[in-house]
């Protein structure tokens, strides 16, 4: 069993993260991953050049670790890996990698789904879209909270 939760101030490479998780998952039968990308357009249809992720010096890491550990305890998975960017993420680039490995596929699918639902609403970040029309702070949507509430 391994649980990894990392705060990444530099570029996040999903291929490298997948390679790390797959290497850890030797002997398992499934690896499921989710990669979140910085969208080039806001919910209002405005062009977005970058997402800026403000974070807390202690609580942000703690929140990532708590979500990853809760995932490992809840599902029948052998490995959990969460990597989340902070700082400025240009549009189109990865913001978050959330993955899990398990002996059979279903727990890994559920674990990855759970991870991103909790990360969207509970990871300690403050997210700002920056574009031609200035910047706009983004909070979770009602849909994001409904997704998280599926897990009780």
């Amino acid at each position, binding site marked *: 069993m391994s649980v990894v939760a990392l705060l990444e101030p530099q570029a996040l490479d999903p291929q490298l993260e997948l390679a790390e998780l797959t290497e850890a998952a030797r002997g398992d039968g499934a690896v499921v991953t989710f990669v979140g990308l910085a969208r080039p357009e806001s919910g209002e249809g405005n062009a977005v050049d970058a997402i800026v*992720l403000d974070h*807390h010096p202690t609580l942000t890491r703690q*929140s990532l670790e708590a979500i990853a550990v809760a995932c490992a305890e809840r599902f029948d998975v052998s490995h959990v890996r969460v990597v*989340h960017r902070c700082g400025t993420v240009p549009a189109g680039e990865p*913001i978050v990698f959330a993955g899990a490995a398990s002996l059979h596929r279903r727990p890994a699918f559920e674990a990855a789904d759970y991870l991103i639902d909790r990360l969207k*609403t509970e990871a300690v*970040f*403050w997210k700002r879209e920056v574009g031609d029309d200035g910047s706009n*702070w983004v*909070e979770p949507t009602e849909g994001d909270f409904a997704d998280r509430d599926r897990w009780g």
Partner: protein
Amino acid sequence: MRIRLYGRLGDVIGREIELAAAEVTVGDIRRSLAASHAAAAATLGRSRAFIGDCFVTDDRTVGDAESIEFLPPVSGG
């Protein structure tokens, strides 16, 4: 006391400010900041207060030598 602010609050009020006050509550600080920064009032009302390594309620008294942080609703992913 030192006040640290994150997200939208940091944009509107400043990331870190000093407030000269003795024996005030978290609620007093919240109301004072909202009164002086109307654009941050709504977000302040939805923000959690954090001192040391604990979230605190509005009735907590804050000493002049302490630091307090206000954390708006979070959004990852």
